[in-house]
């Protein structure tokens, strides 16, 4: 591997990420599955790094899931998105930050469409106005939340309490970065580092002391694939894609996986359990899985937040071996304790995957 070659490509895919003043929209999936990630994004940005991130409780889904499952037409999706932009315009913001990768992809697609076909934009404006009486301007800058963390990665590194380093060996942790398909595959220029060798997560990992693993199937989809997952009979296809990725990364013995997409951490994490239970195969050390994190979770760990506050107990694959490796303290008794130490009850242990 020649890093100069990658640097040359990264240099060609730099995008402008505003430093401050964002209108932030949440992700349908993430706020259900990893609610702490979005909470900690806001917490870090506002409380640690003192940025202005505005959130409006009236925003809706972007309808991307429906769009990619072929149930929402593009025209409808555009109008829904236009309403979000109207909320932003009303709040006086020009920079739009999306928590969800699919939203980010859809916003990119819509903004590019409007640029190429101004009459479509006009029609959307008319439709929105007719329906809601709102007017809007498309954002000046569109960023994915991971773009913003990438932008401030060094500030986080400067405040870090832990680094992505094996405390026993001093070696950097081997990290697999997995980028959501809708981040840059549709518009390589909209992603940091492009689509082939995306840099957005790599930049974070490098800044926080880890080492990125480049494995053959790094480009491959996590397996979510919307339609493939939603129908039970098709889930074998979804899981097969995940397995392909794990088979490919296995020889590199990664310590962890970092993701920037709502579906990816969920499927990379849960399918490890399904693969273990159906085929008896596990990919981590000693029968464990490979822990999968959102970038906010990793940022939170690096900054020293409590793992259980970051929501790591909702992961299927246990994070404790990794926390031990980094040297992050945790209280095992608090793992399944809810608010006010209320016992949330323990999940049943899988028969194959070690937890």
């Amino acid at each position, binding site marked *: 591997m020649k890093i100069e070659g990658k640097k040359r490509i990264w240099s060609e895919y730099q995008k402008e990420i505003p430093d401050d003043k964002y209108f932030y929209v949440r992700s349908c999936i993430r706020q259900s599955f990893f609610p702490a990630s979005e909470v900690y994004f806001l917490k870090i940005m506002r409380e640690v790094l003192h940025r202005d991130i505005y959130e409006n409780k009236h925003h809706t889904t972007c309808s991307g899931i429906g769009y990619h499952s072929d149930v929402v037409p593009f025209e409808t999706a555009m109008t829904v998105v236009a309403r979000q932009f109207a909320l932003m315009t009303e709040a006086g913001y020009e920079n739009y930050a999306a928590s969800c990768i699919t939203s980010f992809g859809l916003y990119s697609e819509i903004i590019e469409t409007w640029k190429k076909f101004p009459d479509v934009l006009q029609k959307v404006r008319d439709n929105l106005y007719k329906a809601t009486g709102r007017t809007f301007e498309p954002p000046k800058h569109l960023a994915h939340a991971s773009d913003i963390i990438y932008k401030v990665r060094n500030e986080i590194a400067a405040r870090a309490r832990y680094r992505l380093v094996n405390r026993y060996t001093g070696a950097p942790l081997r990290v697999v970065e997995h980028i959501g398909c809708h981040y840059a595959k549709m518009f390589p220029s909209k992603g940091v580092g492009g689509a082939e060798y995306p840099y957005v997560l790599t930049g974070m990992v490098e800044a926080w002391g880890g080492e990125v693993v480049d494995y053959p199937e790094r480009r491959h989809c996590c397996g979510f694939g919307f339609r493939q997952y939603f129908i039970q009979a098709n*889930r074998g*296809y979804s899981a097969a894609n995940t397995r392909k990725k794990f088979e490919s990364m296995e020889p590199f013995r990664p310590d962890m996986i970092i993701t920037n997409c709502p579906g990816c951490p969920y499927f990379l994490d849960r399918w490890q359990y*399904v693969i273990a239970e*159906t085929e008896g195969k596990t990919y981590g050390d000693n029968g464990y899985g490979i822990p999968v994190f959102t970038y906010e979770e990793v940022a939170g760990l690096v900054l020293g937040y409590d793992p259980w506050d970051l929501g790591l107990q909702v992961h299927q694959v246990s994070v404790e071996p990794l926390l031990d490796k980094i040297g992050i303290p945790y209280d095992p008794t608090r793992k399944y304790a809810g608010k006010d130490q209320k016992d949330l009850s323990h999940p049943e242990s899988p028969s194959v995957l070690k937890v």
Partner: protein
Amino acid sequence: MVNFGFTINKSTRIDYDQASKDVSRYVIAHEPSALLCIGCGCCTATCSAGQFTPFNLRRIQLQVHRGELARLEQETEKCMLCGKCQMVCPRGVNTRHLVMTIHKAMTLYNRGELKDL
């Protein structure tokens, strides 16, 4: 084992690294003109059996070389050996014998008797 209501799909792509090359080696050793194929499809287009079945010599012989061996023995049993393909092959491949050789190799392979050459 938990029943999730589905099983994990097996890959259908050719994994050349894992694929068996034994049949390919046997076929090339016994009918060297197999190497001459350029995949033009003349044989398949003129095939008497191809009129009634999906018999496709062009694809079969490539599958041999890629180690895609499932059902190849039965596939070759569709050939009537009429020899038209041999007459039209622009590269002079001994197609009739190629079919017979593939069949032989597959029979041996399926019986586990195909010795490494």
